[in-house]
């Protein structure tokens, strides 16, 4: 009598009707598992093409500047007017740290200043969307050589004032965003971006224009001071920035004005404040 079959886990074998039922269940479950695997894997947002050359050290020669953020400017021929052409490579440290500590240690140990010197640094490159950055790690003994600059550095120091601007974007940490992590932006990455920026990695504003293309801006305080600690509450969320924009060759730096960093509110932008106040009254 099939009805009388009884399952006990410690029996060697489950009764027929039970094992047949479970087999059906497992078949359904396996189908669901495979379908979910396919669906979830294919529905993820596309990862961007950023790259972090983990484990590969590259030597790069350029002129070092500590302001507005630590960078080396790598000469890349001359432009049609005969000016030095260069690529700016912001420097960052190991893990979730800025490069300032590593540079300060080198300067102290060698008792020299690297400012405006021609240096050869050994580090790990990361790049994405036309931007190149380099990680320098004290353990890799990053300083290969240092010498006085052989070229006229005035060319490299030319800046262009772009005036005051209001701009909307998302603050990211450039290390993760340009290559170390994917996704290196948005809510899932928020904690990490905050930790990186609090560790000294210079914050970058990512701005998406109407055609969907991205532009990137370094952000510092109104007088060029670091803003790392001040942006904590604004990372990985839409913000508006009121700033003085200055072009340093291939990077634009935003000098954020007093109270110039605000959370972006869709409602405030699209409905003027009178309308909001009025509807608030109506709701009451």
């Amino acid at each position, binding site marked *: 009598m099939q009805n009388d079959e009884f399952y006990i886990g*410690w029996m060697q074998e489950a009764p027929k009707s039970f094992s047949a039922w479970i087999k059906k269940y497992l078949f359904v479950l396996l189908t669901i598992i495979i379908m979910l695997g396919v669906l979830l894997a294919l529905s993820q947002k596309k990862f961007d093409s950023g790259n972090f050359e983990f484990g590969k050290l590259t030597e790069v020669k350029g002129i070092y500047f500590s302001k507005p953020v630590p960078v080396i400017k790598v000469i890349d021929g001359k432009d049609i007017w005969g000016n030095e052409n260069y690529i700016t490579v912001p420097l960052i440290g190991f893990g979730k740290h800025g490069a300032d500590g590593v540079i300060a240690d080198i300067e102290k140990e060698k008792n020299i200043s690297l400012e405006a010197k021609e240096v050869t640094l050994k580090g790990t490159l990361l790049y994405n969307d036309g931007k190149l950055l380099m990680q320098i790690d004290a353990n890799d003994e990053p300083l290969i050589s240092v010498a006085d600059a052989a070229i006229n550095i005035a060319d490299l120091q030319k800046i262009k004032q772009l005036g005051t601007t209001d701009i909307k974007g998302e603050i990211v940490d450039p290390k993760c965003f340009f290559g170390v992590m994917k996704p290196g932006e948005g809510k899932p990455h928020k904690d990490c971006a905050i930790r990186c920026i609090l560790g*000294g990695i210079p914050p970058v504003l990512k701005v998406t224009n109407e055609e969907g293309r991205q532009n990137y801006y370094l952000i510092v305080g109104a007088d060029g001071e670091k803003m790392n600690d001040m942006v904590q509450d604004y990372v990985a969320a839409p913000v508006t920035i009121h700033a003085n924009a200055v072009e340093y060759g291939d990077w634009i730096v935003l000098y954020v004005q007093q109270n110039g960093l605000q959370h972006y509110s869709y409602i405030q932008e699209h409905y003027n404040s009178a309308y909001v106040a009025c509807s608030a009254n109506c709701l009451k």
Partner: protein
Amino acid sequence: MGASYSAVGWNRQKKIYDWIIFSFCVVYLATFIVLTAIFNPDYTFETVLIRSTSTLAVLILHVILSIGPLTRLNKKFFPLLYNRRHLGVTMFCIILVHGAFGILQFHSLGNVNPFVSLFTSNTHYDSIADFPFQALGFFALIIFFLMAITSHDFWLHNLSPKIWKTLHMFVYLAYFLVVMHVMLGVIQYETNPVFIIIMIIGAITLISLHLVAGLKEARKDKINYNLKEEGFVFVCGVTEIEESRAKIFCIDKERIAVYKHEDKLYAIHNVCKHQGGPLGEGKIIDGCITCPWHGYQYLPQNGQSPPPFKEMVNTYDVKVKDNKVWLNPMPYAEGTERPGANIR
């Protein structure tokens, strides 16, 4: 029979169970990882690991949480229940990989301890949209950890079944934390609605299964037994109970199982001393009432587990008059010998 009872090792069924868990996990991980690598070639290894393990664990969590109601709706699901703890421990191991990689990747090598970073990077605890979702995952992980390390029967006995059961009920809190961890985390980033739809379907499935199973049970408990005589309550006709099986009656909020065995009726408390399984849904095997959940056994005439086991449940008086079964809901002390009632 005590011998086969004590010899619960890794028997054939357990081995099959574990092999199925293992191979299903491999199938899922392989599907997810290979497809991501093919269709999203710019992936990073850490992200694929974080995502494949977390989604697999949530899937297993749904399976685990549905087994209880499924067995209540259909007894054929019992084989899933017997080794459910293996599923739980597997799920914990998998989600530990997710949590550990999460902490390593997002919080280590910074200017503060990774665990401090977990709670202090994002401090928008007062906001819904910005809420630090990783903290929710962390607390869920702690609950799963406590459940996994106490999953052995050693802890069941040491903590007492009541405390153990309470601890394991926290799985529902953990489930809620996980849902919020996903809703306030990755779902705010992904643009494809598939993720939120899957989470909602999962939650609806679990809630409906629990409701349907709960209602079925509650309906049974609601039956009133009005015919009373000298403490005895009329419950059913003799023929309504099958040989070697029982019927469960809920009187004054206590569930009592009345078993028919070799022309006699016996009544014992319905709640198994192991994990509270429904003894009345069991069967008499080798003269012992056998719990359907994990096979603990009790003698019908005294509610005691056969030696060397020491579990005992309450017994009750039953009597038969004119083919009608009368039950006295006053319990005797656990393990008290009762003669049973002759059917004829």
